[in-house]
């Protein structure tokens, strides 16, 4: 058996966290160095994933499977072209997040680092699990470290923000849990075998009536996480109150768990229900784009501006996902990475400013460019990447998204293009007010330009921004097969239907429907 690389990636940070318990809490730099080393090793190992990943096949790779609890609960890991880059994004941003909080977090540094490492375990676990039980365990377990990160090291309204974050997420995920139970019992009744394996569920097609409810439950969980309008209200609170590193991880990776959930679970498992709800979902995503953009325009706090820009950008990603085209899906995944980079970078930038002045209000700044020329360059690039300037990463992703959306619906694509105008407006305006103009606040005169550590963690992001903007093939070719497989599965599901007809027939038994009276009718519709 080969080296269990995914297990290593998932549990190495956990081991690191356990190791930290035994280090004296007074040795702050030692603690930080250990945590940083753990995340860097994890990143290095995750690069091996990229180089050994075969982009020609949609099948999951680096698979590890073993029995765990029985009853279909297995330990089953694997990644495909969709999750590959999300894992790497996580391992890439983790050391950066740790570096960004090197000096700003001084209290209870040991616990802080432990929770950051646990968070990494949880996030990677979500992206690599192929068993629904395992997925759910990581999905929920990940909440705990984030809860503490916001609640202990957050701003003045941290308790409100963190409880809201947990309760919102739990509401969705508990209903998803019921849906998982339902799938579980459905599969058991149809086949007589307990299974929670995602790929077993892929093979069956459920009666549309049942799909509706299950899809709603799964979508709610993911829509809250993304977050889609109108479930986004937890996000600005959580972002504003979280410490910088928490915001970075939250925006860059945690939100992607929602879109990933749609791509991995809600859409391929319940295509018929998706079809039914597509108009509603499209409209919600569109509202998210425009509403998020408009809200960002009027924010006084830089951090909540970036938070609302996330709502807007994630709306575009969702719209691209729902276009159900190859370009759109690829664009969505690419844009997920871009959003991770550029929004993550913007939060880092806000963090750098905040460390110097301890305020996040736009009106307290002005003329910072004169004091911090190097920083200005970094800020400009990150901001333009988020706006989607050609040559930087955001452009490639957005253009692919728009291609996909255009294929699906012209009206939607025209309306969604407003995101470019809006994001240019709120970001450039904010940039102008913060960096240029006269210096009104005397504090700014004492600002020091960014130091080597800060340059050190911003440079890798900047390099990747250019790379992803100029030569996207590096990334796109690894995800081609998986994406087209996913889209084909939905677009041509009649074929899939024939292939798995036998299982399907058993699954359409009346027992599988919550409303048996309607089963017959809908069953006929399905067979056509």
């Amino acid at each position, binding site marked *: 058996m080969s080296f269990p690389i995914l297990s290593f990636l998932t549990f190495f940070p956990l081991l690191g966290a356990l190791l930290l318990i035994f280090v004296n809490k007074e040795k702050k730099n030692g603690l930080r160095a250990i945590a940083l080393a753990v995340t860097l090793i994890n990143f290095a190992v995750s690069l091996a994933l990229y180089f050994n990943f075969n982009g020609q096949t949609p099948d999951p790779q680096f698979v590890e499977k073993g029995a765990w*609890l*029985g009853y279909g609960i297995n330990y089953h890991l694997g990644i495909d072209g969709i999750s590959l880059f999300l894992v790497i994004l996580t391992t890439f941003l983790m050391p950066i997040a740790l570096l960004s909080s090197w000096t700003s977090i001084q209290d*209870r540094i040991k*616990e802080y680092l432990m929770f950051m490492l646990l968070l990494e375990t949880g996030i990677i676990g979500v992206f690599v699990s192929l068993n629904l*039980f395992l997925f*759910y*365990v*990581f999905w*929920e*377990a990940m*909440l*705990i470290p984030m*809860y*503490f990160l916001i*609640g*202990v090291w957050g701003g003045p309204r*941290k*308790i409100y923000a*963190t*409880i809201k974050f*947990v*309760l919102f997420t*739990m*509401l969705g995920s*508990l*209903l998803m*849990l*019921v849906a998982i*139970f*339902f799938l*579980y*019992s459905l599969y*058991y*009744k149809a086949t007589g075998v307990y299974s929670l394996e995602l790929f077993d569920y892929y093979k069956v097609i459920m009666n549309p009536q049942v799909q509706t409810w299950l899809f709603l439950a799964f979508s709610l969980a993911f829509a809250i996480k993304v977050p889609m309008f109108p479930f986004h209200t937890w996000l600005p609170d959580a972002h504003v109150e979280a410490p910088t590193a928490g915001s970075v991880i939250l925006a860059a990776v945690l939100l992607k768990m929602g879109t990933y959930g749609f791509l991995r679970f809600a859409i391929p498992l319940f295509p018929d229900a998706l079809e039914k709800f597509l108009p509603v979902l499209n409209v919600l995503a569109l509202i998210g784009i425009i509403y998020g953009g408009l809200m960002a325009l009027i924010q006084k706090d830089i951090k909540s501006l970036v938070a609302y820009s996330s709502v807007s950008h994630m709306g575009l990603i969702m719209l691209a996902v729902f276009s159900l085209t190859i370009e759109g899906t690829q664009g969505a995944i690419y844009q997920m990475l871009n959003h991770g980079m550029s929004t993550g970078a913007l939060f880092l930038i806000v963090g750098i400013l905040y460390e110097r002045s301890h305020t996040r209000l736009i009106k307290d700044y002005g003329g910072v460019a004169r004091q911090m020329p190097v920083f200005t360059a970094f800020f400009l690039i990150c901001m333009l990447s988020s706006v989607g300037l050609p040559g930087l990463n955001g452009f490639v992703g957005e253009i692919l998204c728009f291609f996909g959306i255009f294929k699906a619906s012209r009206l939607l694509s025209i309306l969604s293009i407003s995101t470019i105008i809006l994001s240019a407006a709120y970001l450039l305006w904010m940039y102008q007010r913060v960096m240029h103009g006269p210096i009104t606040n005397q504090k700014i005169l004492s600002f020091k330009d960014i130091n080597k550590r800060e340059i050190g963690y911003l440079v890798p992001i900047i390099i990747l921004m250019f790379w992803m903007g100029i030569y996207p093939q590096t990334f796109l070719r690894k995800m081609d097969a998986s994406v087209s497989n996913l889209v084909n599965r939905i677009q041509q599901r009649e074929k899939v239907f024939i292939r798995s007809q036998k299982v399907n027939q058993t699954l359409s038994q009346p027992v599988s429907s*919550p409303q048996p009276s309607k089963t017959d009718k809908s069953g006929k519709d399905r067979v056509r």
Partner: protein
Amino acid sequence: MNNLFALAPLLTIVVGALLILILEAFLHTENKSYLGFLSLFFLIASGALCFNSWTAGYTYFNGNLFLDKFSLALTLILIVAVCLIVLTSLKYISLQAANHGEYYALLLLAVSGMMVMVSSNNLLVIFLGLEVLSVSSYALAGLRTADQRSSEAAVKYFLLGSFASAFFVFGLALLFAGARSVEIPAIIGFFRTEAGLDLMAILGLGLIVVSFGFKVAFVPFHMWTPDVYQGAPTPITAFFSVGTKAVGLAVLVRLLYSYWSEGFKSQPVFWLLWAIAALTMVVGNLMALRQTNLKRILAYSSIAHAGYLLVAILARDSASLVFYLVAYLFMNIGAFAAIMAMSKKGTEYLELEDYSGVGFKYPWIGATFAIFLLSLAGFPPTGGFLAKFFVFSSAVRQGLVPLVIIAVLASLVSVFYYLRIVVYMYMRTPSREIDIDLENPALYLVLFLCLYGVLQLGLFPGNVLIFIKQAIAALPVF
């Protein structure tokens, strides 16, 4: 001769109780703390004897008492629980100025009553066990004689408990009038016949369920719970919440497991229990939101957990029920042990305010307490999550989807109040100085064992599952 040996686990406990009572009179005050170790010895001996007869399947007294694997498994669970409780009490008793001898003797007597209850099919014998348990429980609740709350708890528990016992006897009389038997199999057989539709017999069964609903604290029979839990000595509160609950549910399993083996959804008692389960989960969790006293929060939380356990009974999944009980044992005793750790001579810190900043001041107690709370809230990867997973998934398989949706929404509410304690421990700055007595090794052992149990059950429960499966396979279906 077989018979006497089969009785050994029960006899050991009774002998232990009596011996402790006698020794109490002769021991010097400073030596009385040894009585705790003595009771521990008898408990462990009884547990070992249970293991010994695991495969034997003894019955005695004309089948009125029998030790099948189900009763042995429950006895073992109870013994583990009581062992942990005795360990937490070793120091607590002297700190909170209660009397050693009475305490341990009554505890052991209560255990003997429980053992009788779980190992009989005869409702009259079950009643005997119930009374032994109840009378000792009333006395245990009032043991902190210096505190008025404790006496109040004892009186309340006694009055309402007597009502519940009366209900039981009256229900049994009604059942006997119909079924002409007090044996559970005969009663179930009676309900299968035409005559079983008789309203009087169903009323009798309902009354018996109500009296157990009282012991287990189902809503609307829960009124006594918060006051008694608050007033009783803390280890005893843990005992009530784990032990009494487990026994009450075990009897309900025996009574109902075969009752709705087929066509269960047409039974009126089923829907009655369905409503009770939903009410228990919702009311228990909502009421807990408003509490500021830790013991009261955990009292309401234990009401809510009774609701989840009832879901397992409704789903006819005894294996999940027992697994839930085991997980609940560790996390709840652990939580109470953490509360007991927060005390010093003559004082217990029980208000939420007292817990501000505790997480960082006493990192080990804080962290374990937080893990127990997360487990109670049902977060993975703890035993609490897996227990809920098993119970709810089998309920969905039985088609109880609306009940499960109510259950998960109720547990969403519970997340709020469990996390509120964590918020106080980790996210608030201390408002008042507290200092606790840190020298309590037995309590730390309990914390460690419970932590181990919670994590083991959450991650690798393999052996426990096998053990439970064997026990459930022994449940007679007739």
